[in-house]
């Protein structure tokens, strides 16, 4: 264990640029700071939910009233309702109009009437959302984590195998260090290196680790990752994550219910929810069902085409259809207004504030992990290793935020297979300069160590080190000799260097090679099943749910780690600041435009709805008297 850290130090010293924090912080202080930040950000999330709730309630409330009024009309047609009921309805409508008049035309109104009016306008929507939230929470709490485990295809670790025994041991040790009952560990055999803590609370928490992660990390680093997960469980993050998911799923359920009269797809989802809520819980199938439903609901928040668009599909024309479309036209506006405001508020306000809250919880878990292991270097090294490659886990889409590093789909680099690894390793060994063997580290047998060595050399080469550049060039040539197709995936190092000096031809060549590379990758992706499936939670927020590696490493460095990160110069910060100042007015304008659009949509939907309702009500009244 000591040997590893000494190696680490030697590596850092060889590179010569180590990030040194100016202000050290004990892990207790870091925990306290992040706990305080959690309170602040929770308040921000509450404000965001209220902000999002007001327009939603304004849209949903008239729908609730409309449904009630039509129901009352139908009942009245068969069994006449008492006059007191209609007086009450008139009263409610009058208060609503008072509030609307104050809002739109700045008419002065009695504050008491205004308060009642606001309650009349907002309460049904709030009550509806609250009950939907309860339904979702109960449903998913009951189904537990079984569905997720099935979706991930997880298995128990094999205690007779050294690495898997080590994993089980490390989890036990960290649970002892945290004073928690040891959570159950499950292994996933996937290509990506990643880990997650899943569950609805500390009681049913499971730790999911991919087999690749166990292979890649040494005992110290594994300890760091497990400590992070267990600290996260101990801090109560699962509950927070559950609430974050439930908020987005409630929004999805709202859209689904509003769509349900118009499309079979929404009705199917609703039916599945009812079924699993009534008698599906407890069985494995029910759990899987719940996970599937969660995925469907979360996807409804995004602005994708769905039932309602198919319902009003202009391509299918007939007289009956156009009459039907004319009758149900107001619903289209309502639906669009809801979707637009949901999308805007969740991706621009609610999503980012929840992402910030989640970042804080991650930093808190990092600080707690340092308290458990007293070894910040282990976690820092593990994070660096895990971020070098996409830690893709099939079936882990529904809860991206629970993973240690983002389980994103391979976008940047293809993972080389065994043969390509061998080619690379041989080329790297061959490219080792004979004359200056003393200054460079010996070629390691491990592919991962080689990768980090390569990254360090590449950094030196781009910094202007001629010797390092020579080595990179030699590597590229020997790879090209062994496997031209594989070498074509990488840019020519000479082009990269001259492009940095402003050579136009080199830049053009680079762009061309990048294009063919990404085309090749997209072809590969289209062959793979589920490659284009978007991750549900990450799609609803503009800000990612994973804090940037650099920030995490810097915080770990303040607690005593020695990560190998590049220091951004002050100049870059100033440039970024000036650019953001320049773009800020445009962003504000854009936000204002969106709000205006939402307001127009809401008003249009309201107007149409009122006209529509008046017609129906009139018709019923006439029929009733006739």
């Amino acid at each position, binding site marked *: 264990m000591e040997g590893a850290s000494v190696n680490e130090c030697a590596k850092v010293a060889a590179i010569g640029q180590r990030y040194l924090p100016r202000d050290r912080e004990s892990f207790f202080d870091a925990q306290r700071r992040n706990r305080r930040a959690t309170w602040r950000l929770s308040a921000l999330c509450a404000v965001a939910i209220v902000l999002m709730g007001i327009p939603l309630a304004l849209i949903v409330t008239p729908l609730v009233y409309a449904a009630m009024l039509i129901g009352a009309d139908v009942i009245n047609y068969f069994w006449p309702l008492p006059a007191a009921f209609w007086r009450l309805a008139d009263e409610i409508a009058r208060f609503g109009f008072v509030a609307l008049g104050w809002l739109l035309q700045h008419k002065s109104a009695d504050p008491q009437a205004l308060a009642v009016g606001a309650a009349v306008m907002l309460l049904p929507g709030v009550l509806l959302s609250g009950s939907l939230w309860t339904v979702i929470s109960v449903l998913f709490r009951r189904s537990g984590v079984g569905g997720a485990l099935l979706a991930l295809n997880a298995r128990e670790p094999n205690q007779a195998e050294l690495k898997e025994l080590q994993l089980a041991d490390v989890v036990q*040790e960290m649970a*002892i260090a*945290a*004073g928690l009952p040891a959570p159950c560990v499950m292994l996933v055999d996937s290509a990506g290196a990643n880990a997650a803590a899943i569950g609805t609370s500390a009681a049913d928490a499971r730790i999911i680790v991919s087999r690749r992660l166990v292979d890649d990390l040494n005992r110290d680093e594994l300890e760091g990752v497990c400590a992070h997960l267990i600290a996260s469980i101990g801090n109560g993050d699962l509950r927070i994550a559950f609430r974050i998911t439930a908020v987005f799923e409630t929004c999805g359920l709202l859209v689904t219910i509003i769509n349900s009269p118009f499309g079979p797809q929404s009705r199917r989802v609703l039916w599945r929810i009812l079924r699993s809520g009534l008698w599906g819980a407890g069985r494995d199938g029910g759990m899987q069902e719940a996970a599937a439903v969660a995925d469907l609901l979360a996807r409804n928040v995004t602005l994708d085409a769905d039932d309602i668009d198919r319902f009003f599909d202009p391509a299918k024309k007939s007289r009956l259809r156009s009459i039907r479309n004319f009758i149900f036209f107001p619903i289209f506006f309502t639906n669009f207004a809801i979707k637009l405001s949901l999308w805007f508020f969740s991706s621009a306000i609610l999503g980012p504030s929840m992402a910030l809250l989640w970042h804080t919880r991650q930093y808190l878990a990092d600080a707690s992990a340092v308290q458990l292991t007293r070894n910040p270097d282990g976690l820092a090294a593990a994070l660096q290793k895990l971020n070098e490659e996409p830690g893709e886990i099939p079936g882990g889409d529904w809860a991206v935020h629970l993973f240690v590093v983002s389980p994103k789909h391979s976008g940047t680099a293809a993972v080389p297979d065994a043969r390509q690894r061998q080619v690379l390793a041989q080329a790297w060994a061959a490219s080792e300069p004979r004359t200056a063997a003393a200054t460079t580290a010996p070629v390691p047998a491990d592919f991962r160590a080689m990768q980090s060595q390569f990254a360090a050399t590449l950094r030196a080469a781009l910094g202007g080190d001629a010797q390092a550049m020579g080595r990179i060039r030699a590597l590229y040539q020997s790879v090209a000799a062994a496997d031209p197709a594989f070498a074509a995936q990488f840019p020519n190092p000479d082009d990269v260097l001259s492009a940095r000096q402003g050579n136009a031809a080199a830049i053009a060549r680079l762009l061309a090679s990048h294009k063919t590379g990404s085309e090749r990758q997209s072809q590969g992706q289209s062959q793979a099943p589920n490659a284009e499936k978007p991750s549900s939670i990450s799609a609803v927020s503009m800000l990612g749910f994973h804090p940037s590696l650099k920030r995490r490493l810097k915080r770990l460095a303040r607690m005593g780690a020695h990560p190998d990160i590049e220091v951004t110069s002050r100049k870059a910060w100033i440039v970024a600041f000036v650019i953001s100042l320049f773009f800020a007015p445009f962003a504000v304008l854009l936000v204002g435009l969106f709000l205006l659009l939402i307001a127009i949509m809401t008003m249009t939907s309201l107007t149409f709805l009122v006209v529509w309702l008046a017609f129906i009500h009139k018709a019923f009244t006439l029929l009733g008297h006739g």
Partner: protein
Amino acid sequence: MQISTTFIFIVIAAAALLWIVAAFNRLVTLRNGVQNAWAEIDVQLKRRHDLIPNLVETVRGYMQHERSVFEAVTQARANAIAAGSNVHQRSTAESALTAALGGLFAVVENYPQLRAVESVQLLQEQLTSTENRVAYARQFYNDEVMKYNTAQSTFPRNLFAGLFGFSSATMFAGSDGDRANMQVKI
């Protein structure tokens, strides 16, 4: 006027009483946490005692002429089990056992063919883990003690902590033997 003064007095007294109840409950919770952490150390030490005969049996066949090491480990284990519940005696005996196991580890390192045997690797991992568990249980105990001691000795809780019989707990420090064996090379 008279009524409002009495009312204010009652409110203040009720608030003070509530605070004392909350503080008392917090101290009890923390003290139970300390006791639980102490019990956890015991559990882990017991686990280590149970594991040692297994390890000795597995490697004995490979190293017939290293009798002294095995005898040291077996003897240290017997002493540790016999040490009873006295904290000082117990921690001395446990450190002796740790040292003896360290000696066994060092000897195993000298046998390359032994290191390659999978069952030995598994056992070695188990032993490493056991040592870690003992260390982490101690660390957790010390953290809990620190929390408890801070809570019961800071103002204003210290005013009544002694009254209700809350005294400060002692940390689990490394024994003198541990420190004597340590050599710092500069």
